[in-house]
């Protein structure tokens, strides 16, 4: 495509926007190029996926409620854990952050829309097809993918149940969607900032999404590459990962985790951005150490490229390899620590109030840090030999992804709901949602640490009797946490339908351009770039 045609297509898109002929009904959503509409689509999609993945988790927890095979066959159990992981990672967490980026980035940097609105529409609308294929595979003869979300070869190639092709196709589409979304974010931030907003004056939220988008652009193609190799190994006779043909199954893990570890940060850096926006607002005090936060985020992103093999300590690495990856992994604790200390320092001697966004942010800081501690423990190679592939790991990544990423998404949702809907949410319902979630999520994931230490491997449909007590409590916590998320649905629906009218800036400590426009945000904002106050940092 030449530059000219790119320009022309962009021109068209912009014209659509500027003539405010809004379509109605389903067409509005199908053809929309408006960043707010697309943001809304992403957020609803991700919530539906959260409930879908959650439903699968409920079946898993029901099976594990007590020893013995109760309700599902072992092979179907593997299909459940695999699709649960894939849906939560690629369907719930990542699209939710893309939704935030779409809604908030243009408003935060004073841009009229995302830079590539038509591509924006595409990047969302191919996503439902990817998940239709993935979830649809449950109803096909092969069954759904059953080789774990990490799809280690040769279990996913020579020994797969025949779902590999669907799986690869679905992952390709998800990857293309994420890449398009990420390109859009980078171009928007680079080109559409309001005059005077230099890089070091951008809100930290914008910085984290900027860095995350670069990570996505760098590693999603590697994922596409590795699933392509998987496909040719399974169906076209290549031997990338097959020892018989001169390949190596361990190489699969190296390439997968070269994608996989940055992927982990793709799911947590935006969370840092959201929390760094909310804590100063409710502590009524500027974010402590803005520039060190930026550098910490960047160094976490860079380090993420040289620690991948800490997922593979038991695969048989030479000693110096184990030492190198152990030291690098431990180093990540430094910038992550800086972030946590900065949040605490922001709260220190502030003037705090505890509205729902703040409650979720505080829960995030504490529980994410607990996940960070177990991460540090896992970094130490000798003890990792004991923790690896046990419930200790399951506890670790659910603490960082559920009470980390998901809680930050809730914090952000409560923070911006007034801006999105024009109404305040019901404080009472929100309190129910928060406290039920907080208690149940800890009941769900904390005992998993004990299960892992006591020796329960992950991904097993049945377990020895000494694990029975904890599993029962974990399952109860799981059901409670699952149900609690329906309260959030009620909060949102109630908030859309009505409620107390929200002012343009409902939080007195909040800063940022998004609060200078009315609530709900008009369909088009910042058609003329806003003037920045000189002292805004």
């Amino acid at each position, binding site marked *: 495509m030449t*530059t000219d045609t790119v320009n022309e297509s962009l021109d068209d898109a912009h014209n659509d926007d500027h003539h405010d002929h809004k379509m109605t009904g389903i067409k509005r959503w199908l053809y929309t190029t408006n960043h707010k509409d697309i943001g809304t689509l992403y957020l609803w999609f991700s919530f539906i996926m959260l409930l879908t993945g959650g439903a699968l988790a409920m079946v898993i927890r029901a099976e594990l409620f007590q020893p013995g095979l109760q309700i599902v066959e072992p092979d179907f159990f593997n299909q459940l854990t695999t699709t649960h992981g894939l849906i939560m990672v690629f369907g719930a967490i990542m699209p939710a952050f893309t939704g935030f980026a779409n809604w908030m980035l243009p408003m935060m940097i004073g841009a009229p829309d995302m830079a590539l609105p038509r591509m924006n529409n595409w990047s969302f609308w191919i996503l439902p097809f990817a998940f239709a294929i993935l979830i649809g595979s449950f109803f096909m003869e092969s069954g759904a993918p059953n080789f774990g979300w990490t799809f280690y070869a040769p279990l996913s190639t020579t020994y797969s149940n025949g779902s590999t092709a669907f799986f690869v196709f679905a992952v390709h589409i998800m990857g293309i969607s994420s890449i398009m979304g990420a*390109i859009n974010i980078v171009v928007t931030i680079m080109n559409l900032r309001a005059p005077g907003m230099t890089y070091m004056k951008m809100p930290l939220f914008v910085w984290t999404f900027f860095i995350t988008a670069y990570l996505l*652009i760098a590693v*999603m193609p590697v994922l596409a*590459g590795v699933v392509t190799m998987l496909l040719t190994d399974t169906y076209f006779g290549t031997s990338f990962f097959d020892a*018989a043909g001169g390949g190596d199954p361990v190489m699969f893990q190296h390439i997968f985790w070269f*994608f996989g570890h940055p992927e982990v940060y793709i799911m947590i850096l935006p969370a840092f951005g959201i929390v760094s926006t909310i804590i100063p607002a409710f502590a009524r005090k500027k974010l402590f150490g803005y520039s060190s936060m930026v550098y910490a985020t960047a160094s976490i992103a860079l380090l993420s490229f040289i620690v991948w093999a800490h997922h593979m300590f038991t695969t*048989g690495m*030479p000693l110096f390899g184990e030492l190198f990856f152990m030291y690098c992994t431990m180093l990540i604790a430094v910038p992550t620590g800086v972030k946590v200390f900065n949040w605490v320092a922001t709260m220190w001697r502030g003037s705090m109030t505890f509205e729902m966004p703040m409650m979720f942010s505080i829960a995030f800081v504490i529980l994410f840090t607990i996940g960070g501690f177990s991460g540090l423990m896992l970094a130490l190679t000798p003890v990792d030999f004991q923790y690896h592939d046990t419930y200790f790991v399951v506890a670790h990544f659910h603490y960082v992804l559920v009470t980390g990423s998901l809680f930050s998404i809730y914090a952000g949702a409560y923070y911006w709901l007034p801006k999105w809907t024009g109404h305040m949410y019901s404080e009472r319902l929100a309190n129910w949602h928060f406290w039920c979630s907080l208690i149940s999520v800890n009941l769900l994931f904390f005992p998993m640490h004990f299960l892992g230490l006591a020796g329960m491997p992950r991904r097993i449909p049945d377990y020895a009797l000494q694990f029975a007590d904890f599993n029962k409590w974990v399952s109860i916590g799981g059901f409670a946490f699952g149900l609690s998320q329906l309260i959030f649905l009620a909060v949102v629906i109630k908030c859309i339908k009505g409620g107390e009218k929200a002012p343009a800036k409902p939080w007195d400590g909040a800063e940022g351009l998004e609060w200078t426009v009315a609530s709900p945000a008009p369909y088009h904002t910042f058609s003329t770039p806003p003037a920045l106050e000189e002292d805004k940092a």
Partner: protein
Amino acid sequence: MHTGTEQKANNQDKRSDNGKVTKKLVLIVFAMFGFGFALVPLYDVFCDITGLNGKTNGVGVVYADDGIDTSRTVTVQFITRSAKAIPWQFEPVINEIKVHPGEMKFVNFYAKNESQRAIVGQAVPSVSPGIAAGYFQKIECFCFTQQPLQAGEEVEMGLQFYVDLELPEEITTLTLSYTLYDISDKADS
């Protein structure tokens, strides 16, 4: 404040900028897709250098006659394993051998096709500890080629090797494992 025309010009600049940045990013995407595949040969190079995974040389080396270090003795053990679905008996004739670094040795492996059809086998070598793999030099090995055996046919297959003089001091035992695979479907015809 911007006037109307100024702003329009400004917007056009931005749009052509968008195109440029997008192009660059798409290039990065394709480069990284390529990089994913480039990791395959890179990984092999990495394994060669570090001995990761105990990979050994796939073509014969020339025996470097640099003398024999009789002050050291290394035990070389041989183990075998037939992968699933290859009905061959496959065993080392001797289980272990003591060698001095630099000394050339010749050992045999016995294979018999116990099935009633012709099968092409391929033995895949792996050395442990992995760090020693780079010092285990095969001059001639049956694993360099495919082994077709008729139904019931038996054969003794040779391996000629030496252990490099540079082998790190702390390594006293070295294990060479062969896994045998049925590659009749993929074999060169």
